[in-house]
C-alpha cells in the first residue's frame, strides 16, 4: 500500500520537522529541514489525517487516518456519549479527531446495504478491553446522525445498574423499581440529540401518569419528554412510553412525512442481563427485570419491530441477542499505530525527547502492545 510507504518515508521527516522547533545543533540539518518543511507542509496532513468530514464517504482508503468531528455535531450528538478520556483529549487538543478503523467501516457498510423492510438486524461489537469498541460505535452513530436517523443512545448501561442513589417503587406496576435521576437525565440528552423529530412524531395512545396528569393521543413527542423531565417521579415510565412509541412508529409511516430510521445503540449491553449492585429496602439484591428502565430497554433489543436497525455493544454475546451480526474490534495494526504516533507528535503531545526517537517508539510498541487505550495512557505522561 502506497500509504504505508509514505508513512515510513515521512516519519523521519515528521520528526525532523519537530526538531526544527527545538534549538538546532548543526547548520547542515537546518538547511535540510528548511527545504523539507516546505514540501512536507502539504503532505503530512494526508498521511494521518483526512479532510473528509462526512462518515458517509469514508472508505477503505481512509483506514488508519484521523478525521475531525465538527464541533456542532459533538455538542448535539455526543453531550455524554464519548468516553471520558476522549472528552479530555478534545478539550486539550482543541479538536475532536477520530481514527477511521476497519470495524467501524464494516458496520457503516452493513448499515448502508441493509434491507429495511425486513425485521431489524442487530450488531454486536466485541473485543478486549481498550481496543476501541466505544469509539467505533460513536463513529457509526455519527454516520447515522449525518444521514438523519433518529438516535437512541445509551452511553453506558452499567450506570443504570449500579451506584444508584434513588430507587423508588414504580408508580405504575407494584413489582418494579424506578430510577428517576438516570431516566430524566437520559430524556434530557435524548431531547438535545433528536430535536428535529420531537415535533413531528405523535403519540398513538393515551398515557395516564397520575390522577390529574395525562398525555392525550396525538400529542407531539416533545410534550411527552417534557412531562418526564419535569415530573421526576414518572420519568422512568415516560422513558418506557417513548421507547414504545418509537418502536411502533419507526417504520410504519411510509405514506406520511413521519418516515424515519431508528438507530438504537447501547454501550455495555451485558449490563442488561447481569447482576445489579442495587438493593431493595429489605436488603435483598435487585434483579435487572425489576428495574423499569432495564425492562423497557430489553424490549427494544428484541427484533419484533418493523423496519428498524439497531446496533449494540458488549464484551460477551448473550443468548437473548441471537441472531446477531458480530463485529470484532482488535488492537492497532502497524499502520494505525504509526498514524496514532504521528497524530500525537503533530498535536505536541509526546514531549519526552526519548519518545520521539526510534528506540522510544519501539519501547512504546512493546509496553502498550498496540492497545489503543494503554498507548493513550502511556503517552499521557511521557
Amino acid at each position, binding site marked *: 500500500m502506497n500509504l504505508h510507504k509514505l508513512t515510513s518515508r515521512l516519519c523521519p521527516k515528521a520528526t525532523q520537522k519537530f526538531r526544527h*522547533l527545538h534549538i538546532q545543533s548543526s547548520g547542515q540539518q537546518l538547511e535540510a529541514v528548511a527545504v523539507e518543511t516546505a514540501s512536507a507542509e502539504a503532505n503530512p496532513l494526508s498521511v494521518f489525517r483526512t479532510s473528509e468530514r462526512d462518515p458517509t464517504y469514508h472508505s477503505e482508503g481512509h483506514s488508519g487516518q484521523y478525521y475531525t468531528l465538527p464541533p456542532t455535531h459533538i455538542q448535539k450528538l455526543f453531550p455524554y456519549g464519548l468516553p471520558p478520556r476522549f472528552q*479530555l483529549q478534545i*478539550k*486539550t*487538543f*482543541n479538536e475532536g479527531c477520530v481514527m477511521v478503523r476497519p470495524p467501524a467501516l464494516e458496520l457503516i457498510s452493513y448499515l448502508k446495504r441493509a434491507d429495511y423492510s425486513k425485521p431489524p438486524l442487530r450488531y454486536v461489537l466485541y473485543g478486549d478491553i481498550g481496543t476501541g469498541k466505544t469509539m467505533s460505535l460513536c463513529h457509526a452513530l455519527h454516520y447515522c446522525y449525518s444521514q438523519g436517523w433518529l438516535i437512541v443512545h445509551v452511553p453506558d448501561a452499567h450506570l443504570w445498574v449500579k451506584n444508584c442513589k434513588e430507587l423508588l417503587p414504580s408508580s405504575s406496576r407494584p413489582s418494579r423499581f424506578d430510577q428517576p435521576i438516570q431516566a430524566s437525565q437520559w430524556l434530557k440528552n435524548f431531547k438535545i440529540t433528536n430535536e428535529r423529530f420531537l415535533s413531528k412524531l405523535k403519540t398513538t395512545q393515551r398515557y395516564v401518569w397520575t390522577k390529574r396528569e395525562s398525555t392525550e393521543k396525538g400529542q407531539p413527542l416533545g410534550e411527552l419528554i417534557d412531562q418526564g423531565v419535569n415530573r421526576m417521579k414518572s420519568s422512568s415510565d415516560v422513558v418506557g412510553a417513548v421507547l414504545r412509541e418509537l418502536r411502533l412508529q419507526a417504520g410504519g409511516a411510509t405514506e406520511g412525512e413521519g418516515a424515519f430510521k431508528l438507530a438504537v445503540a447501547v454501550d455495555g449491553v451485558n449490563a442488561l442481563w447481569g447482576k445489579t449492585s442495587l438493593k431493595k429496602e429489605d436488603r435483598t439484591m435487585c434483579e435487572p427485570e425489576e428495574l423499569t428502565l432495564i425492562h423497557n430497554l430489553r424490549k427494544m433489543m428484541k427484533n419484533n419491530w418493523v423496519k428498524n436497525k439497531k446496533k449494540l455493544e458488549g464484551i460477551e454475546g448473550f443468548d437473548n441477542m441471537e441472531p446477531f451480526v458480530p463485529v470484532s474490534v482488535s488492537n492497532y495494526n502497524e499502520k494505525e499505530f504509526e498514524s496514532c504516533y504521528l497524530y500525537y507528535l503533530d*498535536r*505536541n*503531545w509526546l*514531549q*519526552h525527547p*526519548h*519518545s520521539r526517537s526510534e*528506540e*522510544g517508539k519501539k*519501547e512504546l510498541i512493546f509496553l502498550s502492545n498496540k492497545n489503543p487505550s494503554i498507548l493513550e495512557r502511556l503517552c*499521557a*505522561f*511521557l
Partner: protein
Amino acid sequence: MAASVRHLLKPWTPSLCLVRWSRYNPYYLDPDPSKDARVPESELSPEEKELQELKTVSPIKAALSSDTSSAFNDPLISKFINMMMQDGNKILARGIMTQTLETIKRKQVEKYHKSPAAKREEIECNPYTVFHQALENCKPIIGLASVQKGGKSYQVPVPLTDNRRRFLAMKWLITECRDNKHRRTHMYEKLSQELLAAFANEGNVVKRKHDLHKMAEANRAYAHYRWW
C-alpha cells in the same frame, strides 16, 4: 596479593551494630543501569580507564526494582516518588506522579493550542523540564543551623550540600501540598498547581525559600559561630 584481596572480601561486620546503614561491604560498587554507560575506550582518560577496569573486576550491589535501563527512567523523579510514598505504597505514589505529569502537560498543551503562533515558542509543554526547573527554583542556596554558644542557641547561616538542598525543596513541595491546600482536591491537582507556580517563580514554596534566605541574611552577624 590474593590473600589480602580475600581478606577484603570477607563479610565485614563492624564492632558497633549500625542498623541504619547498608550492610554491603564498602568495596561494592553502585549499579548503573543506563545503556549509554559503555563509552568506547579511545575516549577515556587514564583515570577513567582504571575505573572501567575496576568495574569489571569488583562486585556490584543488586539493582533496585524501581530502576529501569530505558531512557524514560529519571533519577530525580524516582527520588520524588520515594519521598511522596507512605507506608511503602510505591504504586500509589508512582500513580500520583504520573497523573501530576499528565495534568501539567494537559494544562500547558491546552494553553499552547489556544494561544496565537507568536506566543507558542515561550510555552514549555514538557512536564519533565517543568518539574526540573520548578525544583531548581525551590532549592535554597543557604540554610540555617542551630548552634549553642554560652548557654544560648543561635540560628547560624550555613552552606548546604547539594543533596540537602534537593531534599529540602522536595520536602517543602510535598508538605505544602499536603497541609496548606483545600481538603477535597486530589494530590496530583495540588502538586501540578504548585509545580507550575514554582516554574514561574511564584507560589508558597518559592516564598518559603525566600523567607529562609531573608532569615539567613538577617542573622549574618552570627556567621562566625560556625566552626566547620
